[in-house]
């Protein structure tokens, strides 16, 4: 059963070592760390990190982000570089999520769940239901980005449809209407480079039938990608306020 959930973007720039001398978007990083701290404070037995990967599957729970893939010369975040680098490349979404958990000092065991970009909504929801049913107390860290086409300087240039698309996601989360995420259009999400679509739908499956209240901790697009940070409190579960 899900006791608490958090949504964070999967941006590698959250990892402090990757942005150089200057701290980039510290407010974003602090929001993510606060959300993860709340998740940790709910004392789940396991925290499932869900994010986009090239294929659907569960990763070794000790895997960590290989910083050298992004910044040659850097090591592995909080871990050892895997011996078989080709097979062990952890998707950025899971690696950044694992990094956040380590930063927050989370003692919970981890389940690193990658979801393929073309995984249908129904399959995503089923994965979410499985995660929710796996233990008594499960925390869920959803590493999901909105559109990467939110401006002329965005990674994917401007697509005018982005603003409306991301606003709908934010509204669903803010109002606790997580089931609405199941209706996110797969083709539109792909067009808008919204890599978070499968992870949102895993979240929807995991929280099906639960009453949820939420706190939006961050909602902005400083680099042309929609970043949403939120804490989701599941009714019936006491959760610490980190306001």
């Amino acid at each position, binding site marked *: 059963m899900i006791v608490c959930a958090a949504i964070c973007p999967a941006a590698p*720039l959250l990892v402090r070592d990757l942005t150089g*001398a200057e701290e980039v978007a510290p407010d974003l990083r602090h929001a993510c760390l606060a959300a993860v701290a709340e998740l940790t404070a709910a004392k789940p037995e396991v925290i499932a990190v869900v994010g986009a990967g090239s294929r659907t599957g569960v990763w070794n729970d000790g895997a960590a982000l290989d910083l050298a893939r*992004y910044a040659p010369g850097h090591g592995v975040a909080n871990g050892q570089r895997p011996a078989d680098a080709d097979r062990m490349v952890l998707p950025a979404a899971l690696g950044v999520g694992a990094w956040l958990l380590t930063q927050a000092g989370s003692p919970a065991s981890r389940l690193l769940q990658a979801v393929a970009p073309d995984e249908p909504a129904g399959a995503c929801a089923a994965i979410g239901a499985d995660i929710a049913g796996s233990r008594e107390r499960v925390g869920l860290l959803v590493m999901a980005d909105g559109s990467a086409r939110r401006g002329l300087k965005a990674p994917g240039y401007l697509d005018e449809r982005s603003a409306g698309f991301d606003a709908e996601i934010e509204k669903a989360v803010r109002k606790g209407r997580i089931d609405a995420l199941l209706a996110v259009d797969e083709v539109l999400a792909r067009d808008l480079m919204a890599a978070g679509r499968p992870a949102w739908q895993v979240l929807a499956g995991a929280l099906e039938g639960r009453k949820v209240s939420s706190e939006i901790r961050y909602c902005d697009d400083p*680099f042309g990608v929609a970043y949403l940070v939120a804490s989701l409190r599941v009714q019936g579960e006491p959760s610490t306020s980190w306001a």
Partner: protein
Amino acid sequence: MGEQSVLRLGKRSFSPGQLLLMAIVNRTPDSFFRPGETWDEQTAMQRARQAIAEGADIIDIGGVPAAPGQDVGVREEIRRTAGFIAAVRAAFADVVISVDTWRHEVAREACAAGADLINDSWGGWDDKLAAVAAEAGAALVCSHAGGQPPRTRPHRVSYDDVVTDVLAHTQRLAGRAVAAGVDPARIVIDPAHDFGKNTWHSLEVTRRLSELTATGWPVLVSVSNKDFVGETLDVPLPDRLAGTLATTAISAWQGARIFRAHDVVQTRQVLDMVSAIRGDAPPARAVRGLA
């Protein structure tokens, strides 16, 4: 020796990966580059202030041009430099101050006024200089000028191998300085481009600078707007910045640690760029592709 280690200048310590910018502030009416620009003391102070703000680590203050010209005696050289050094020291407690002189009498007064480093470009012509550095606890630049007396131009100079000569002379001076009591962590060597060298020699020294850095002594290069740059590119004084910066980058890549320069902003950028390429310093801000 071999490995580069910590360099001490004044109260400060610098690791091998730190590239230090030495900004030139001439207290002369007739230096070769922008002559007389900082002859006036107030203007010179403004120049020092600006250089520090722009990223200079060391202020190099000199009272005598390198080129031949009107004689400047010991007393006049002291008059031009010591008071100004004291003023810079009073204004900037932590900045490293260098005095550009070959004369031990001037060096002694300069150190008393607050200089941390004696920058002798003339190859240890005055053999009492090292003792002054030792007595003041100052750092010393041991350079190669091909045995030429101060303020003379090279005329038909030749070497079996210029780099071998530079290595032998600078290491001999460094050894002499250690014997005189100079802290080994406060000794720097300088091939002294253009000093006792034609353009081919300065290019060879630049090409093979790694042989100097391999000695383990910190290497200073003073290449800013010099004639070897002008002759290489066939450009007059105002147009030597690009050649200067190219030489700076090549020298930094080979491990030089101090860079004496007129153009602080551009040189700082070159050094910061090389540091990042070498992996000694991170980029200022990396976001591209990581959002």
